[in-house]
């Protein structure tokens, strides 16, 4: 009866947009631009995010030039992208100025975090894979999904568009601390047209986008699971997406509040984050009421900022967790403990934020609390990583391209995580705070860690998306130089950081050299000793750029020349996305998917072949069939 009801309703749902119906051929615009299909939106997210990543990467290359060769004009192979007018405004005799460096630094961070990794991990992989893995025809709210993508794009364009304003883009670091960010671009009369304000505007759009996205994801996972897809049969990927969704849902709003308040500070001259008696060189005593609290901004920012780290991490971890069982031909070790760990991780990530703020003088009690929670959170993280390492044990590993990336993820993320431990203790943090050690630490997590995991995901699901494998030769050409360069860039950062190199030196410590010759500077000798590492690291960074060329070629060339997949399940995997046609059509499944078992049934001794997909109906043992009693009202599939 209810099924009948539903069919009726479904038709009404589409009365105003009949063209979305899969019986009709949607037009080009509806199919490829304003698409509501989760798979195409995922691809849109992916392409856009990769473009933003490339742009953020480019900003970093310019910064690395300023650090390695602060006195030399930017070489033309790097500066050709600017117009002469832009160069005249932002470069001094062709050299990167401190202001320009700050701008690039702030935007590099912002772009990589908000416009690059999160949309790639959560937006692209989450969108494409999640509904497939749970056996859903689409996301619960396809139009909302589309809106979420377009808001993200708009936010990104607003932020990056500010590069062309008179004021340039935001320059106050990706953390955008007040009062610095409150004052920045104060000379601009129309505050809406300053980079700093547009950064906030873009942020509000991005937060709205991720809010819609996370609501959609969580609803989809809760309500659209296929028959038999019980919670403990969910692939780990889906669990990770669920937790990520909750992190985005609950952690972003306080930052939105902070963003709105900072926007008020900039546009209406309020003093949320502006203390009394603020004095600047250019403006004298600020014409503000004062009475606000700069610390408040930091609290609100890091309340998002820390969960955001896990928003970056979990999708990547999720990809790796999918790839390892497929390529070791054995179940994921400790699936349940991983699931509980990821839930605990999600919860704990909300109560560690102030470990970014040990230097603000919060007092020992508060510091101790956050130090304790921070050390606690390493427990679930270590469980996750360890479970994946143990999953390799005794497996018959197939070193396919995705597996190679996934294997590299494990130690690289490990280094990133372990280098974070000293930062968790506020005593050690006093020394390391704001040095290159911190930069090295979180870049190890994000770049060779998270990004490698996402690359693994791209190589893994590319055959499902396109029907062709990516080329192995180009893949190796991409992987090995990337792995080496990543370490050349980031390992010396740890060394430099412990020697006291500050993260905001736009000239790589050059300014301190003259002091070191004749004064007893704390960092004196160490700066001289380690400054040449700058050049090595920069060379590594530029080489890394070259190493991405095979990847770009691979993505495009394999579309046409890649080896065709033999069947719909080319990796012999067990999860539901491989039960769809290749590429999956609108509505995903050609049959009504029913799930009979857990997600990682590899090498079961009691069945032929070394894998047993979730959707294959058991024949030998009827006892195993567990028809789901509560799902008798599942809608009929067409």
């Amino acid at each position, binding site marked *: 009866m209810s099924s009948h009801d539903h069919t009726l309703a479904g038709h009404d749902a589409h009365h105003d947009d009949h063209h979305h119906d899969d019986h009709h051929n949607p037009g080009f615009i509806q199919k490829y631009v304003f698409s509501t299909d989760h798979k195409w939106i995922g691809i849109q997210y992916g392409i856009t995010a990769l473009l933003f990543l490339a742009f953020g990467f480019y900003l970093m290359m310019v910064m690395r030039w300023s650090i390695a060769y602060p006195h030399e004009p930017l070489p033309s192979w790097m500066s050709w992208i600017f117009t*002469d007018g832009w*160069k005249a405004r932002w470069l001094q005799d062709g050299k990167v100025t401190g202001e320009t460096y700050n701008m690039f630094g702030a935007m590099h961070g912002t772009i990589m975090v908000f416009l690059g990794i999160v949309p790639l991990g959560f937006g692209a992989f989450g969108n494409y894979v999640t509904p497939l893995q749970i056996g859903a025809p689409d996301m619960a709210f396809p139009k909302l999904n589309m809106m979420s993508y377009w808001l993200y794009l708009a936010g990104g364009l607003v932020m990056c568009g500010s590069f062309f304003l008179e004021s340039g883009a935001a320059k106050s670091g990706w953390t955008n601390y007040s009062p610095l960010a409150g004052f920045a671009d104060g*000379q601009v009369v129309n505050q809406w047209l300053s980079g700093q304000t547009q950064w906030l505007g873009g942020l509000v759009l991005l937060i709205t986008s991720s809010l819609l996205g996370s609501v959609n994801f969580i609803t989809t996972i809760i*309500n659209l699971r296929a028959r038999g897809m019980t919670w403990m049969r969910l692939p780990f990927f889906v669990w990770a997406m669920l937790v990520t969704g909750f992190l985005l*849902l609950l952690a972003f709003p306080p930052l939105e509040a902070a963003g709105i308040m900072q926007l008020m500070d900039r546009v209406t001259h309020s003093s949320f984050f502006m203390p009394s008696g603020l004095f600047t060189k250019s403006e004298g005593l600020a014409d503000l009421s004062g009475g606000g609290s700069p610390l408040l901004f930091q609290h609100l920012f890091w309340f998002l900022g820390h969960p955001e780290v896990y928003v970056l991490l979990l999708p990547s971890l999720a990809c790796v967790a999918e790839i390892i069982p497929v390529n070791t031909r054995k179940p994921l070790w400790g699936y349940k403990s991983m699931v509980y760990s990821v839930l605990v991780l999600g919860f704990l990530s909300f109560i560690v934020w102030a470990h970014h703020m040990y230097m603000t003088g919060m007092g020992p009690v508060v510091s101790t609390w956050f130090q304790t929670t921070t050390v606690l959170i390493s427990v679930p993280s270590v469980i996750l990583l360890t479970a994946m390492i143990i999953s390799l044990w005794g497996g018959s590993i197939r070193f396919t391209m995705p597996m190679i990336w996934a294997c590299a993820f494990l130690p690289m993320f490990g280094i990133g995580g372990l280098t974070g431990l000293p930062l968790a203790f506020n005593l050690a943090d006093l020394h390391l705070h704001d040095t290159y050690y911190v930069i090295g630490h979180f870049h190890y997590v994000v770049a060779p860690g998270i990004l490698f995991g996402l690359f693994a995901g791209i190589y893994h699901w590319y055959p499902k998306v396109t029907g062709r494998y990516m080329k192995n030769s180009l893949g190796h050409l991409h992987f090995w130089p990337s792995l080496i360069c990543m370490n050349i860039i980031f390992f010396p950062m740890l060394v430099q950081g412990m020697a006291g190199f500050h993260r905001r030196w736009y000239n790589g410590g050059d300014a301190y050299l003259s002091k070191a010759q004749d004064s007893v500077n704390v960092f004196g000798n160490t700066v001289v000793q380690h400054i040449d590492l700058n050049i090595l690291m920069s060379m590594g960074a530029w080489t890394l750029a070259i190493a991405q060329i095979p990847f770009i070629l691979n993505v495009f060339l394999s579309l046409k020349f890649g080896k065709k997949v033999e069947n719909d399940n080319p990796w012999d995997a067990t999860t539901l996305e491989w039960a769809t046609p290749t590429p999956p059509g609108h509505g995903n499944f050609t049959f009504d998917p029913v799930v009979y078992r857990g997600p990682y049934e590899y090498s079961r001794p009691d069945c032929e072949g070394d894998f047993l997909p979730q959707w294959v109906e058991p024949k030998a043992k009827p006892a195993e069939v567990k028809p*789901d009693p509560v799902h008798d009202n599942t809608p009929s599939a*067409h």
Partner: protein
Amino acid sequence: MEIPYIVTPRKDTGLFNSKIAIWLFLASEVMLFGGFFSAYVFLRIGADYPWPERTLPVLPGLINTFVLIGSSVTVVFAWASLKLRQWRRFQIFMGITVACAAIFMVLKGIEYNVKLHHQAVRLKDYTVIEGHLGYEKEDGVEVKDYKGHKIEENQILIEASKLTFSTVRFHKPWVESLMGQAAHHNAEITLTEDIKAITEIGGKEEVIAKAGDKLSPGLLSRIQKAHLAARKSNSVHRTAALREEWKIAKNDSPELKGWQLAGAVSVDPAALAPKLISEISTVGFTVNPPVEFMFRPRDVQEGATQSRLRDDTVIEGKLLESPMIFHHVDAIDFQHLAMKAEQKGIDPISAIDASWLVQNSPFAREAWEWHKGEVAKLEAELLKDYGTDKKGNPKREPTHKDRYRIGWKELVKKVESEGRPKLSGTASLAEEFVGPNYAARGDETFPHFSVPREQIGFASKFTPSWNTYYAIYFTMTGLHGLHVIGGAIVLGYYLFCGKKMYLANPEWLANRVEVGGLFWHFVDLVWIFVFPVLYLM
């Protein structure tokens, strides 16, 4: 393809999709408003000025509270009517709900309007004066600015004879404003000197603007173009020259690192000079005859002989007396002054007695003396009503606000005690909504007052910039107001465009109304927290 569970709930979760979604969305909203509420706590605890307590009119807020609660009830009735398939009743109840939203917004709008037109100033000794500003007049007629807006008597007046604009940045509306003001005074702003520029390298200097050319945004834009072109061309040459020097230096001593060479590498300015063309970064204009220009205080950094606008325009000329003129003072607040005095260990009463305002304004002195008497009366009354504790201290004492703030109601009480007739009931009820009635109360209740510029510490309307209380008040109520508007639009959509949905699938419309109603409850709930926090505490 159809998305399941749009209308019927899934059995194991018991929920249809949009119901899950709205609860998740509300969780997120809780975190958003939670962010603001924690900001409120943070700001209030950390405030280094007397937090304005019970400063908003309670009556309209209270009415709004009941209006919203009522609408939360009717929205449930509307939903229930749909469940019973009673379209007409649905229309009525939903209509009431949307009407309530409108009433709420109207009351809120009145409240905002009063605030946005109310001026406050904090003197350098932390005395605060509140009231309404007058408008600039010439020969009894109100002056309008170039946009046609009235100009408040809170302008920086500079008799300028010379203006120097930055070609890097000049704000076009401000240029237009200067032109308009000069035209009003029959004065001309003309270019002081010929502007010469080499438009191409090796070319001859050409005059691109002649002395005596009248100021216009077009002229400035033309000069700006020349400036940008010169900057561009120079940058190219400077970069090339520096690059060349580095090439030579590296060839000469390949064993040295960049930072070791840096000191030795430089471009010979003499060799470079022929390749460079002049960058006109400023351009001077003469004002003839000198004009008394008016500037908004926030736009200008004033100096005795030279002032600077925020767009880097330099104004040369004498700074004139630029008092801020209150047409009606409606409150004098010594709380901040008293707080500062207490912090320094000075007796607040004598600090107020010695304050600039009490010394210089007979009205303020009189009001303050009267107020001291009132506080003494209040003290005696409280002692009588509540008695003393075991140590012999009075159990209740007048608050800081009672002691040091003379609000408009106190001023009214003062003149009424002196025999001025009272306002009618309706008129004084209206004051609860729109603030004091200056016209009826007259100048003797709310007098004129002129504050010299040098006494002003900080001045603002009752906008977010006045203090962090108003900042959080406007932000939270504004955001709440946006939620009310958003909710009303959605519910209004179901009301006015819902018939088709109702006929096609009434259950689905009921689901939608349920979800909209849940949101509406949330909006109500936020107000239930906002109201006491901002209005009563």
